Every structure is written in C-alpha cells, then in structure tokens.
C-alpha cells in the first residue's frame, strides 16, 4: 500500500496547517512532505492543497467574486470555506498559511478548529528572514524590517481599497505577534519546527515532526525525502524547471538556504531595530544566544 494511502487516510476530512511567517522554510517543509508521500519531487506540483488565502477557492466555494467584498466580509467566510473543503475528503489535506492566527469580526478564528488536525508552525530567526524577504519581494532590507516590525503588516495587501490580487490579502501582523498568535492559541495543537534545527539535523527534526503527527514513517523514507529536498536539489530543480511560486521581481526563489547569513547581510543598526522590536520572542526561541 502506498504511504499516502496508508498514513493520510487516518485523518479523513481534516486539515494540517503548514503555517509560518513568509520566508521561514515553509516551501522546504512542503517539498519534504511532497517527496515523502509522492516518492518524487516536482516543485511546481507540490502535494499541498493550495494556500489558505487563495482567491479562486474562496470564489468557487461561495460562487462569488470576492473582489466585490471587503476584507471583513471575506474573513468572516474563511472558516465556512475550509469546512466545505473538508467535506467528503477521504484523507488529510495540507494547506500552507502565512496569515496570523486571528479572529474575524464575528469573533471566530479564521482557521476553523473543528476541521483542523494540527498545525506545523515553522519559525525562523527574524534576522535571517529579512534578507530573504527583501530578495523575494524586490525590496530593500530596511523595507523588510519595516514589514516584520509592523503590527499591521500584510502580504498581498493592496493600498487604497484595491483588491484584485491573485491571493486574498493576508494579515501577518509583526513577526513576534505572528509567532505568538499561533503558539499561544489553544484551539489547534501546534507542532513547532525551528528552521535552524532542521538545517542542522533535518532527518531527526522531520522524523520528530512526523512522530508528532502520529504518522508511522520508516526512517529510510525520511532520509530519502530529505536527500531529495536538500537546498542544492531544490535550487537545481528551480534552475531546470523554474518555480511558479517565485515572484517575477526576484531572480530566484531559493536563495542561500542557510541560517546565520544575517551576520554578513545586516548592519548593526538594522540588527538593533529587529531586536528592539522582537527581543522577548527571540529570547524565548533562543535566537539571542549568538549575540
């Protein structure tokens, strides 16, 4: 029996959220999950059932053009859309999310707990995120610092009431609030995956995650999936086939794939601005030890 048929069908009609602040290793982990369950890797066809805030799903589930709706109206319907997405589905579905865990205007979390299995929350040192984010979005590092420090930070936000992006606007909040929103909520069980730990020992970390997900995966398969999704392999795949998740503004999606690159990239004033804003959460997660 195929691994996916055996393990994913244990959780019919449920969603596994793969949540993170942008540029925290979400794509790497999704690639790993795809390689693991498919046995092969096509970076343009990852085994994840879309992005939480993809507009076309919302529009086709509700038969509405969401460009005619306000953000408040959209957020109020997000739980409904995902409950419907789970109906009559015979296995666990993975969904990537960059939104912070927030409540809508009706007081309901936008991520519905009743159809959620667990969340793998991927966290990365914000000092490393800003360089990667700047590269991805074609911004300066200072602009990326402004975003991660902004309590009202958004992804795919359009200014002045415009609302026609491919994806719905995603409220990130600032980096610390994003981390706290997911780790402190009590509705959905969280598995914390630290990017830096995974870089250091991917087989152990990913095996721990699979165990926490109550999936019985032989270690040889984990090793093979880790090998298929090493940074060099992902970069090579992008060079060969391109990557649809790359932004047009950046030359590549996969950049350096390292932790600690900030030491060469950031000025002392930039480091200070990030730490001033995120000191407490960085400390709790062990990101201040190297300083």
């Amino acid at each position, binding site marked *: 029996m195929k691994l996916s048929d055996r393990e994913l069908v244990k959780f019919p009609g449920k969603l596994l959220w793969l949540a993170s602040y942008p540029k925290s290793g979400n794509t790497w982990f999704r690639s790993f999950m795809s390689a693991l369950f498919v046995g092969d890797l096509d970076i343009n066809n990852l085994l994840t059932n879309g992005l939480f805030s993809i*507009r076309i799903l919302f529009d*086709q*589930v*509700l*038969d*509405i*053009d969401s*460009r*005619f*709706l*306000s953000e408040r*109206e959209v957020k*109020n*319907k997000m739980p*409904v*859309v995902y*409950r*419907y997405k789970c109906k009559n589905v015979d296995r666990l579905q993975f969904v990537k999310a960059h939104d912070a865990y927030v409540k809508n205007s009706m007081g309901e979390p936008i991520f519905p707990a009743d159809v959620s299995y667990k969340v793998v929350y991927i966290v990365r040192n914000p000092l490393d995120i800003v360089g990667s984010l700047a590269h991805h979005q074609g911004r300066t590092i200072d602009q990326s610092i402004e975003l991660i420090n902004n309590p009202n930070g958004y992804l795919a936000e359009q200014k*002045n*009431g*415009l*609302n*026609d*992006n*491919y994806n719905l606007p995603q409220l990130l909040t600032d980096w610390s609030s994003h981390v706290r929103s997911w780790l402190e909520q009590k509705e959905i069980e969280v598995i914390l995956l630290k990017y830096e730990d995974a870089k250091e020992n991917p087989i152990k970390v990913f095996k721990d995650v699979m165990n926490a997900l109550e999936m019985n995966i032989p270690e040889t398969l984990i090793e093979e999936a880790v090998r298929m999704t090493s940074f060099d392999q992902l970069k090579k795949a992008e060079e060969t086939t*391109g*990557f*649809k998740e*790359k*932004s*047009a*503004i950046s*030359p590549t999606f996969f950049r350096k794939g390292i932790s600690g690159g900030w030491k060469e990239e950031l000025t002392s004033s930039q480091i200070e601005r990030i730490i001033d804003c995120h000191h407490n959460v960085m400390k709790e997660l062990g990101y201040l030890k190297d300083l």
Partner: protein
Amino acid sequence: MTEKIYTYVYYGLRIHSEISLQPLPEIAFIQGPDIHIKFGKITRIEEGLEDTVYKPNTIINQRIFYWYVDDIAEFLIVGKEKVIINQADESKLEDIRVFLLDTIMGVLFIKHEKIILHASCVATDTGAYVFCSNASEGKSTLAANLARKGFSFVEDNRCLLTWNNDLNSFSVINQDPIASLWSNNLAFENFKGVDKIGPVRKNIEKIDYNLSSLVPTEVKSVKKIFIIDMNKSDKGFVHKKIFGIDKFDLLLSYVNFNYLIKDLGKDEQYFKKVMSLARAIPVELISRSEMTPISEFVTYISNEIV
C-alpha cells in the same frame, strides 16, 4: 399598488425587473421577457434532494439555483426565467444589484446556453478581437488602453459570442455599456464620451464608467481570440497559436462561471457550443512577464491586430 417594472436587455436576455439595475440603461421591448426578477419570500429548500449540490451559500440542481450573500439578500432562480430576491434587513439595493448582475446573471446565462467568455473586446473597422484572461491579469486595462489608441471599445469583462449568418462568423456587439475599473486605472479618466459613475459598492474601489456613447452599435465579426496571462520571467512575451483539444480546453476554461456548467446540467450543450467556437475562430496565447509595463503590452497587442 403595482410595483414599477424596469425593462432591460442584457446579453441578449429580455428582463422584467422589480429592482432597478441602474446604471444599465432601460430598454423597452415588445415580446415577452426571458426573465422576471421579483422581490419575495423564499421558501426554505429541502435538504437531501437528489442530484443536488449543497454548498455553504448555494444549492444547485438542474431546476433551481438558490444562493445567498450574507447581510445582502437571498436569491432563487427557478427554471430559467424566474428570479426571486429576498432582501436582507438594512441591505442596500446597490449591493443587491452588484451580486445579481454578477453571479445570478452568470448562472442565467448558462441556463440560457449563452457563450459568454470572461473577456474584454475591442474592434477595428474589419472585425473584433477578444481578450480572455483570469481576473487581475489585465484584460480591462488592455481594452481601455487600446480604446485610448483609437480602437473601438466593445466589452470590458464578459463577452457574448453569437453565430451570425449574415457575417458567416461568430460575432459580438456590446451587451453591457458599464465598464468597471480599479481606481488606480485611469484609462477612462477624462476620456471623451465616457461618464464616470462611481464605486460599484461602498468601500470597494472599483469604479463604474458608462460607455454607452462610445461603444460601436454595429455587430462585428470576431477575427481572433487572444488568451492573455502573466508569467514569472523577467521580461518579454511568449506568443503561440493554440490548436486542437488545447484550444477547446482553453476556451471552455474562460466561459463565465464554467465550473457551474455541470451542476446546472448543461455540460453536453456547452461541449457542442465551445467545440463550434473552437473550430471557427483562431486562438492565440500571449503570456507576458509580470514585469512588462502595460504600455509595452498595449503596443505589442495593437501591432498584432492592426
């Protein structure tokens, strides 16, 4: 007391409506209407009906289409000619109009087997060119900018294609003189013959423009359909002709509300109609980089169609 009845012709369908669809122009007609739109109470639809799709806000089968928009209205289409609207307390008629013209009319077009592509359209003296794209990929902007270059503006968002025996080809003529552009798109600002109406809904920065005096009044033969999309390369265009089953699949994917065709029991009819369209009209795909400025794209397209 008798309610006022407004009369419209919208994408070839004659409508009697108790709700004003302004800014659509009222048009009198002699023969009976294809569609009656009325206000009224809607009886709760039973659960567990056979061959019926139950979605969060929609119940669909071949006879009925029930749909609601939170805090705006419930809508019920019965058969293909009757629409009942149950207005929510304190909702605005302008909001009802937006969703009625979009989803409800979209469903009625399918029920009436219209070939309506999600597309804009411009014309020259010799014929019309249709630009299909997904939302946000620039079809309205393209058509509006081509109008600025002297091409005739035919449609903004939905394009009805009908077979015309006199022209011996598929043809188009404007069906909706109201174009909606996002407020950062200034293509129709201060454009001679265009009236700016205002936002489609409060707090939604999509602006309606009335193009009634601008659109051509004669039927135009469709010369070519362009599928336009955007890619992640850093520059330039990919331009290719599409043939065979790819052509059929692409055209079907741009039929307005195509994903509802099967639930509405119209897949067989649309298979035949789209096949005949695919046989009759050349289709070309033009993919442009997200980084390509719209002005460059407009120049490229205008060189293709002169």
